[in-house]
């Protein structure tokens, strides 16, 4: 006769702003009845080593230390869940790196002789198999709890990546792109936030990362028609880590 043990979970951070760690910390009281918190160095000193059922990983891979840690996490975890834009897309550190090399940034900030070891900022799935990707900047607490609940039942969660526009329609928000000519990125950004910015009358700036099949060329065209400079538009579209391949078709169109 075996006593059923609580699943072991771990929460780890790579290079990021600790936002997801904070969201998880804030919702920990709801998880603790169902899981054993094996590791969470941000929040506690008594941490265990060894295999766990689920590891939630925040942050991008931006230095060799991050990569070593991620490889170890993958080896020791049944499920690896990438949480937050940094882990899923690479967030602002990757978005802006698409215009220049990581080395040039290092030299600009720390000087030419800097000994700091860096890697080009990258998402987790560029290095290891990731079982679940939950984006957001920060992640939505309800989505996080739903993902965890699914995994505790051994089900991979279903996460939609419909555009923010859909949530705007559901909330009956006036369209800030059409009516106020704001540079709203809602049409190409994944929902999950509840259309937060347009709901307050501001432009969505893309912090949840791209939606499914984002029409970057059409988005850029609309903004250009509204008087925004194309370089500015591309900067805005790439800020929160949307990968370069999403813009390939656009460059081809421009070249013709």
């Amino acid at each position: 006769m075996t006593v059923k043990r609580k699943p072991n979970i771990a929460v780890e951070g790579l290079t990021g702003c600790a936002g997801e760690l904070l969201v998880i910390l804030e919702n920990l009281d709801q998880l603790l009845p169902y899981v054993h918190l094996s590791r969470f160095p941000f929040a506690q000193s008594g941490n265990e080593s060894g295999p766990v059922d689920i590891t939630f990983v925040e942050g991008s891979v931006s230095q060799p230390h991050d990569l070593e840690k991620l490889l170890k996490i993958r080896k020791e975890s049944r499920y690896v869940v990438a949480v937050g834009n940094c882990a899923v897309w690479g967030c602002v550190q990757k978005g802006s790196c698409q215009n220049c090399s990581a080395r040039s940034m290092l030299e600009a900030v720390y000087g030419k002789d800097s000994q700091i070891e860096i890697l080009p900022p990258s998402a987790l799935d560029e290095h290891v198999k990731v079982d679940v990707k939950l984006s957001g900047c920060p992640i939505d607490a309800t989505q996080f709890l739903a993902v965890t609940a699914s995994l505790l039942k051994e089900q991979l969660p279903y996460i939609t990546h419909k555009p923010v526009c859909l949530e705007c329609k559901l909330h009956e928000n006036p369209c800030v792109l059409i009516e106020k000519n704001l540079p709203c990125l809602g049409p190409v950004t994944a929902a999950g936030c509840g259309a937060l910015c347009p709901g307050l009358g501001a432009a969505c700036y893309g912090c949840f990362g791209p939606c499914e099949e984002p029409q970057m060329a059409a988005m850029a065209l609309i903004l250009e028609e509204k008087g925004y400079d194309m370089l500015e538009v591309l900067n805005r579209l790439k800020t929160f880590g949307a990968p370069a391949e999403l813009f390939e078709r656009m460059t081809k169109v421009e070249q013709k």
Partner: protein
Amino acid sequence: MADDEKSTKQVIQLAEICRVEGHAAVDVTIDNGKIESVKLNVFEGTRFFERIVLGHKYDEMPHITSRVCAICSTGHVLAAIFAIERAFGFEPCHRELLYRELMHLGMIIESHATHICALALPDFLKTPDILDFATKHPVEFDTWTQLRKLGAAIQTTIGGRPFHPVNLHVGRLSSYPGSDKLTPILTSLNNHREMAINLANVVLSLKPPMDKTTETSYLALVPRGDHYGYFGSEVKSTDGWHCSINEYKQYLSEVVVPYSHAKKSSSRGQTFMVGAMARLALFGDRLGEDARAIYQKSPLAAGSKNTVLNNLAQAIELVEAIQRAIRITETLINLDNADKMVEDVTGEHSDFCHQPPFVARAGESAGAVECPRGTLYHYYKIDDKGTITSADMVTPSAQNTARIEADIRVVVEEQMGKVSENELTNNLETLVRAYDPCNTCATHMVQVKFK
């Protein structure tokens, strides 16, 4: 110490410090009983924000720079907004500033509550993990949960979400929460006033595990108005000088150190401290009655510079933040109700802010706010199209680094050989943690190696 004795090098290493925001380690090398070096190594991955923002438009600065750090994201957003508005020569209206201040106090409440209860207190309560903390110390755990939720609720009401706010922009909020949304905040603030006072009294009763840390000077922004506060455009030092924040490069120097990703600051060649202790040392006489009562019976009022008392300084600020937030919320509710009465009579909705909106233009300026951990500077140079051409950020934790190292040296000198190795390591961790260093989140067990 005899020179002919065999060299006995000793290394005290805190490999990775837990319960701080950031990956950081401490290395103390001791040779023949003398401290050879003290190194605080912040090995948090670098993200080059000063470079990332170049080429982006001014209106993107608040939301890009908020990603430097989640827990003080509101501070980064406001520092960016203030810097850009100053570059444009724009002064926000009074009510706008009250909304921003309330938002900022929400961050202070949330951040201080988390640091005091969840990060610092476990050292004194000797509790190793969250489950142990939650089950054996339910009162403290509940205090943390409730105060943190209060801070988060304020920031959500004004900023749109608990951190990385979306409602704050250069010039003005995109949407102003009215009395219907502010009233529940006011109720909650009033309900937690007593709880914050109790927490401060608990922290007041804790004894620091070392007698002294280094002598230091303190730097903080001179708060606007005549109350205790976190916004200003001039910095003051306990050494007797004050200066415009636009001159920050004159009084702060940042150097890159080979062993760390955090730049190291000094002020006119001296180590210094920013944060709650510095603010109280300079402006403690501006506290409201609740906080003043606790401050006056604390060793801080008597001039103690023991860094571990920074936990207490934060607890006092938490009390002050609630009292000030109550006043602001009441004011905003009254103003909003008065507006609604006028609207009822005239049938027209009028904008409360009568000044003309800002005009984007070429310029440069620094902007600063007092974050939970100290003064945060943002600096931008903007061209005539509104594009950022140069940027700089000086964070509180970087400013404190040099003093943290100096403090570690003093404590090791005082306690080496007198307390067990284990106790010394724990005490050093408590010391570093008291700074509430925000290097963004650390990992596993502290490893101590005595060679």
